[in-house]
C-alpha cells in the first residue's frame, strides 16, 4: 500500500469515515444480537418454566460482570478524552485498564461457566441453557475481539502517536458490547 487512499479521508456526511463504518458495524451487530435476543424472548414467553432455569444463573457473578463492563466503558471514554488531547500516555493507560477489566469479565465468565457445568447445566441441559451459553458465548467472543483490537491499537498506534481516531472507534464498539451485556444481564440473570 504505497500510497494513501484519498477516498478514506473524504467525509461528505461530516462523520469521519472510520466512525461511520463503526456505526454500520454496530447496526449489523444490533440485528445479529437482536435476532438472538428476539428468538430467546419468543421461547421465554412460550415456556414459562424457563424462569426456574434462570433462577440457577448466578446473579452475583452476572452483576459483577456488569460492573466490570460499565467501569471499562468509563475508562474507554477517558481514553478517548485523552486521545483527543493527544495525550498518548494517559490514553494508553486507560486502554490497558479497559483491557484489564475485560480480562476480569472473561475471568468471572470462565469461573461461572465452570461452576455451572460442574453443577450439570451444560449447553445440552435444556434450551434455556443452550440460549444462555450461545448468547453469553457470542457476547464473550465480542469482548475478546474488542480486547485484542484494543491492545493492538494501544501498542501499535497510540504508542507511536498516530491514528488517534481509532481510540474513539474501538471505544464505540466497546460501548456497544457493554450495551449488549446491559440487556443480556436482566434477560438471563434478573428476570425470574
Amino acid at each position, binding site marked *: 500500500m504505497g500510497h494513501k487512499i484519498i477516498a478514506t479521508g473524504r467525509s461528505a*456526511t*461530516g*462523520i469521519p469515515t472510520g466512525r*461511520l463504518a463503526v*456505526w*454500520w458495524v*454496530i*447496526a*449489523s451487530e*444490533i*440485528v445479529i444480537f*437482536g*435476532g438472538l435476543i*428476539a*428468538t430467546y*424472548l*419468543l*421461547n421465554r*414467553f*412460550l*415456556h414459562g*418454566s*424457563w424462569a*426456574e*432455569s434462570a433462577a*440457577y444463573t448466578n*446473579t452475583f457473578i452476572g*452483576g459483577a460482570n*456488569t*460492573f466490570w463492563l*460499565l*467501569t471499562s*466503558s*468509563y475508562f*474507554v*471514554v*477517558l481514553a478517548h*478524552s485523552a486521545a*483527543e488531547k493527544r495525550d498518548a500516555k494517559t490514553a494508553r493507560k486507560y486502554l490497558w485498564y479497559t483491557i484489564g477489566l475485560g480480562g476480569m469479565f472473561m475471568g468471572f465468565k470462565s469461573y461461572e461457566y465452570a461452576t455451572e*457445568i*460442574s*453443577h*450439570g447445566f*451444560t449447553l*445440552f*441441559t*435444556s*434450551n*434455556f441453557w443452550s440460549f444462555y451459553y450461545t448468547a453469553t458465548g457470542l457476547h464473550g467472543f465480542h469482548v475478546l475481539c474488542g480486547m485484542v483490537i484494543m491492545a493492538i491499537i494501544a501498542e501499535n498506534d497510540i504508542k507511536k502517536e498516530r491514528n488517534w481516531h481509532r481510540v474513539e472507534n474501538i*471505544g*464505540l464498539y466497546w*460501548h456497544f458490547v457493554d*450495551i449488549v451485556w*446491559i*440487556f443480556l*444481564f*436482566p434477560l438471563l440473570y*434478573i*428476570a*425470574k
Partner: protein
Amino acid sequence: MASHSHPSYLKIYIMLLVLFVISVAGPEIADIMKLEGATRLILVLITAFGIALVKAYYVLAYFMHLKFEKIYAPYILLSMVALLFVFFFGTATDAMKSEGHNWEKTPIVLPEDKGFDHHDDHGDHSHDDHSGHDH
C-alpha cells in the same frame, strides 16, 4: 465534535452505577416486601428492563456521543431496532404460542420442569439427553 459540551463522564458513570444497583436490587426488594404475582412482576420488569433501557440510553447518548453525532447515526441504529420489532411481532403469532387457530403444539415435557438439584449428576448430560428424560 470537539466543541460540544457534554456533562462530566464521571457523573454519567456514577449514575450508571446507581441504576445498576437498583436493577440488581429489584427482585431482592420484591422478596423483602413479599410481593407476589402481578405487582412483583411489574416491579421486576421495571427494575430489570426499564432500567436497562435507561442505562443503554446513557451509554449511547453520552459515552458513545450519539447525542452530539450527526443525525444519520441514531437513525441507522433506530431503524435496525425497529426492524427487530417487526421480526418479533411477525414471528410471535406462532413461535411464541402453544396453540392457535386450527393448530396446537403437542405438549412437551421439558427436563427442567422436573426440578433440578443443584448438585445432581455432574456433567453426564449427553447431548441426546434433552428428549425427555426423567429425574
